[in-house]
């Protein structure tokens, strides 16, 4: 039983990371219906940006260092995300290119980012210049470290903020209306492209946060770390219901738990089969995900 509970804690942490990235995925998908394959790579970029900042410190890195790494990383990656949108996606969006073309562009962006990082940081794994203490507390036999707790709480905070922003503020509604009909949205006086840019900035920033946290928590980063992670995060977004903030988090947690339990009871090599299997199951049986809203399309 304790092992089971310990596994649930493990799952929670993994799920939180999935959820954070899923949020950004979901936001971008939510506004331009683009499966942004490069999103996982922005997460990777975030990890590298944080790495560069932390490398500047000599000796012990404290909370100030971590905070600085987070802020710089969010800004840098946010701006890169904005730039990617501006350079690669916007011309296509403006021309109303087919979705397929956008997807191909995203694959191209993903490759370009990955290998740009490889060219500048080298192909090998980099080790985060920070070792956090392994302290924590026990509930029964289950151990939770302070870092784990911090990661989970921080993520919940971000989630609450986003939930309010997207559903309650007029800006969030504008983002949703762009997804439905961007021309009509511009007729409401809404600067469509500025909003798309904003969404990319926010989504990329979230990925950066996840990247830095991942680097700090696991300690090791690499230029290809974002790809599979991105796909998993997308799976999480779908499970939770794409476009939904709470859904992205919930999806992340569900995916984390499914993967963990799959690893424990069946075998680690089948982990990804579980992840993608549950993705397919969801799409076939409940395509709107756990919390997504059903859209009745009229004929």
């Amino acid at each position: 039983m304790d092992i089971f509970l310990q596994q649930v804690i493990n799952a929670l942490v993994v799920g939180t990371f999935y959820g954070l990235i899923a949020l950004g995925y979901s936001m971008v998908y939510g506004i331009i219906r683009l499966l942004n394959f490069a999103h996982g790579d922005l997460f990777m970029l975030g990890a590298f940006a944080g790495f560069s900042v932390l490398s500047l410190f000599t000796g012990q890195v404290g909370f100030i260092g971590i905070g600085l790494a987070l802020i710089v990383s969010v800004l840098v990656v946010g701006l890169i995300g904005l730039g990617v949108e501006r350079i690669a996606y916007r011309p296509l969006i403006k021309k109303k290119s087919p979705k397929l073309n956008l997807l191909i562009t995203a694959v191209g962006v993903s490759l370009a980012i990955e290998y740009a990082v490889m060219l500048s940081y080298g192909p090998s794994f980099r080790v985060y210049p920070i070792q956090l203490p392994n302290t924590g507390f026990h509930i029964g036999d289950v151990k939770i470290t302070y870092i784990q707790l911090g990661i989970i709480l921080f993520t919940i905070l971000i989630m609450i903020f986003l939930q309010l922003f997207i559903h309650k503020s007029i800006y969030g509604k504008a983002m949703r209306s762009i997804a439905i009909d961007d021309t009509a949205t511009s007729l409401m006086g809404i600067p469509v492209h500025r909003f798309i840019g904003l969404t990319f900035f926010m989504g990329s920033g979230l990925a950066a946060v996840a990247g830095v946290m991942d680097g700090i928590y696991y300690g090791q980063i690499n230029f290809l770390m974002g790809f599979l992670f991105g796909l998993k995060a997308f799976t999480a977004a779908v499970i939770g219901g794409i476009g939904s903030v709470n859904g992205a988090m919930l999806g992340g947690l569900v995916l984390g738990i499914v993967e963990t339990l799959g690893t424990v009871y069946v075998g680690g090599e089948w982990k990804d089969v579980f992840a993608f299997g549950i993705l397919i199951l969801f799409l076939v049986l409940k395509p709107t995900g756990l919390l997504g809203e059903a859209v009745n399309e009229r004929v």
Partner: protein
Amino acid sequence: MNTPFLKNKSFLYILLFIVMIAIPLITNRYWTDVASTAMFYILLALGLNIIVGYAGLLDLGYSAFFAVGSYTTGILTTQFGVSFWISIFLGAIFATVLGVLIGIPTLRLRSDYLAIVTLGFGEIIRLIANNSKFTGGASGIYGIPKPKIGSFVFQSNVLLYYLMFIFVLLAIFVIWRLGNSRVGRAWKYIREDEDAAEAMGVNGLYYKLLAYGLGAMFGGLAGSLFAVKMSAIAPESFGFMQSAMILLAVVLGGIGRISGVILGAVLVILLPEAMRSFSDWRIFLFGVLLVLTMIFRPNGLWPSKKETEEMDDPEPLKGGSKSVVS
């Protein structure tokens, strides 16, 4: 419309045909190898074009069908001593059946969801290949014999190249004819507006399954050929990047158009080779190039032609004419 295959640019096509035949004779082993890789990419891209280009179903896991063909041939020829010809036939059938099986529950989904499901499905197939005993696990299957007819063995690269070339010609013929038929039009109707297609009596699910099954079949064929060309296969070859590259081939050249798709497949193989001397920069530049293509040639490098103003029947339209108010 019914544009005859060899009417307009027939000279160009004949020239191309001759070049294709001549490649192994006039170049070295390396270029022959690159050309055969291109051949089997053409086959894959043509197959995927049925699904994506004709029926408008975005498939991101096409390599799954390719894997099924490869493994069928790999397993049957090495472990059961089955002849290559039977194995390629079975490979195509298995791939088709798999295509239909996965299609039935998923083809009802919206297009972007379908893309994700197929992606997941492709990964699952790769992982099954990676984790199972009968597929040789992570190290795959090796020692796959070359095809033979009687005592004639397709031993050399050159012979294999011609073997693939024959399959490609066959595929072009079949797919081109399908594209210009009632079936091909039904696919286009579904791609454009599925509800309206239904209203015109087009059974959406049936035609989608047909597209999926046929596309899978060509994937299976290509897979079998891949297995004998490589003589060793491993799960690495069937990952998402493979599916992405095939999709790229379809889109880069000109989606929905056979000559465009062929061009795309050739480019996808040639570009990375041409950029080999940049080594580290290669994939980076490849990515950048992709983006640039989509921005500046969104319909591919060789897109299909657009509308024509019909002049054969200049009957004036009464409602819109200017004569109403003088």
